[in-house]
């Protein structure tokens, strides 16, 4: 009898965090030892408005299963208005991605302040759970650079 080993699905998740609020929020989650899955890898950017749609497309192209962007709460942006730009750009991008078959649940924008370590952890737990349920992201796979 042959048993196919079923490998547990581990999603790849890229989190872009702005330096001033969300990255600090992630640090706080660490300081408070608040657990969230190791599938989340954080990339530090100066501001959520630094996130170019290109980065997100690249992530999906390279096999990411979910992308989340975290910025300061509206009105709290270190650069006054960067998070508003991010919100507007991502709204457009996400609906386009949805059209391409990358479900809306795979992309998310969240506001996490430097004091919201718990929120950061909870958000990541929730996001990973959502993505795990959705399963592997197969779209754009054909475009993936084979190595």
């Amino acid at each position, binding site marked *: 009898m042959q048993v196919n080993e079923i490998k547990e699905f581990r999603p*790849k998740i*890229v989190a872009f965090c702005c*330096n001033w609020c969300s*990255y*600090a929020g*992630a*640090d706080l*989650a*660490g*300081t408070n*030892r*608040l*657990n*969230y899955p*190791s599938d989340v*890898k*954080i*990339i*530090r*950017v*100066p*501001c959520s*408005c*630094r*996130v*170019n*749609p*290109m*980065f997100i497309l*690249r*992530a999906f192209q*390279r*096999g*990411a299963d979910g992308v989340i962007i975290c910025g300061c709460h509206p*009105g*709290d942006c*270190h*650069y*006054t*208005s*960067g998070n508003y*730009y991010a919100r507007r*750009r991502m709204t457009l991008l996400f609906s386009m991605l949805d059209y391409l078959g990358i479900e809306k649940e795979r992309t998310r924008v969240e506001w996490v302040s430097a004091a919201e370590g718990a929120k950061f*952890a909870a958000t990541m737990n929730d996001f990973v759970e959502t993505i795990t349920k959705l399963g592997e992201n197969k779209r754009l796979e054909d475009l993936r650079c084979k190595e």
Partner: protein
Amino acid sequence: MQKIGVFVCWCGSNIAATVDVSAVSEALSHEPGVVYATNYQYMCSEAGQNTIKDAIKKYGLTGIVICSCSPRMHEATFRKTAAAAGLNPYMVEIANIREQCSWIHKDMATATEKAIILGKAAIAKVHLNAPLTASQSPVVKRALVIGGGIAGIQTALDIADAGFEVDIVEKSPTIGGKMSQLDKTFPTLDCAACILTPKMVDVAQHEKIKIYSYSEVEAVKGFVGNFEVTIRKKARYVNENVCTGCGLCTEKCPQKNVPNEFNLGMDKRRAIYIPFAQAVPKVATIDANYCMKLKTGKCGLCEKICTAGAIDYSQKDQLIEQKYGAIVVATGFNPIKLDNFEEYSYSQSPDVVTSLEFERITNAAGPTSGQLLRPSDGKHPHTIVFVQCVGSRDTSGCGKPYCSKICCMYTAKHAMLTREKYPDTDVYVFYIDVRTPGKNFDEFYRRAAEEYGVHYIKGMVGKVAPKADGKLMVQASDLISNEQLHIDADMVVLATAIEPDKSARPLATMLTASMDTNDFFTEAHPKLRPVESPTAGIFLSGTCQGPKDIPETVSQAGAAAAKVIGLLAKDTLTANPCVAHSDEMMCNGCSSCEKVCPYGAITYVDKEFRMPDRTVAIRRVAVVNEAVCQGCGACTVACPSGAMDLKGFSNSQIMAEVDAICK
């Protein structure tokens, strides 16, 4: 190819307990470009730092990756370390394997795996790092304060007391602002003039302060530490240096029919005038709109009687150029026009007045010498109705959507003082809410109601109808007793909303300082940087930033001064080198980046380019002012041609991190 060194920190057991640090350094040592990888108990310790320095020298490292705690903790430390070993500090990248790895994961295998990926991402990034040099710019040790009200006065005094030169530009002939028009100040009821005029004198006598009165800012160029400002000194037709302020001319001038703006038009002044007795500078000014000599060439009386010989009808506007390191905006406020609120009959009855007019009527130096007399017939009013929130909290488009903040308190003051001086007067205050959040404020309001017998009625006035007998029929709702009231009043006082001075908007454009939809200047951060504009080097003082009472204005003025002093105390400014940069060969001059820049750091120049066929073409390209750019990166995403990039967080660097993580 970079020569990269990797240094994995144990952080005692903080990292080492959950991450297999040797496995991490071993795994990362096989990454392309990595020539040296090690781990150590405390990388941030002196011994740890020496390990890094030695490795840089020994292996000729061109980039280093530290796998340790958050960069928010020790990035600066390791940059210094690198610099000490002769490596550009911006060739250092941190992989955060403590806060974002060892502290949140329990399973060693998982944590180690993640730590390796984070390390790889940092290595991928550092491959693309370029040495960056922070630019230095000198600081001009002089500050400009725009506006000479209590906000500007306090800021100027504080800066000057710290030993820096300050210039005040004030558009009217004297400093003093709105506070000089007030009678008493809440909640202590000390007289405004008694506390303000000594400060005005201090300003006049301070050797570090120069007042440009009757002047306006014409143009602003430059950036933080190095602003070039053009000031227009308007012709006042009186030689300031000669005039003694004796006031003889202001008594003899035959043109007596000029509305006196200091008393809000409730009495008249002459064409040559000194706004009020304690004016600073105490110098006469000729109002060119009314002076017969200037209009028709006939008269010249003031010139004849001036013993000092100060009158100069040929004076012209003067343009003054000056350099400043910092600029403080203190342009203040005005009550709104009441054209949209004619249900209160403001323009239909002289006995309906604004609160500021009421202030002048009760002021000893005002048009009635401090006697409470109604404007129409000069009689004592026996019933006064105060209406709160006239034009404030109004989203219908007629008024202002915000709370003007000061009205509840000054109305309580007016009501209280009226009852104190004239106990036979009935005083009604119609309010929506009474807002008194300030030290001793609520106690003050309650005193008006409890001890002075002011009738506070929750409700709003719907109409004020002047009657033929001179009374004012006030129709209002009383929401508590659920009835409509009709009060025959002798006077109605409108707590008029305040708005930023009209000069603020063009000034904001000149300063590239941002404003909200109500024309209040926005602060760099609403909680943590309340006195700075997002534009570096521009500071905010007083009501130009939002409605404020005097105590709050003075605190903010002091805070703004402290920020200015902090800036001027530096000889040079070190800029953040992680700023935007435009590749001019790719820029198509579309202005997309300029529009999203919150700091006005991007300008356009026409530049000559040598084309492949050896002709020369002129193209419009974006140029980033690195001293002004704060490095948010908004422009990099807006740029359609990919010309704009951010140093230290370039497209290719972030993309490399994405690739490393998704591998």
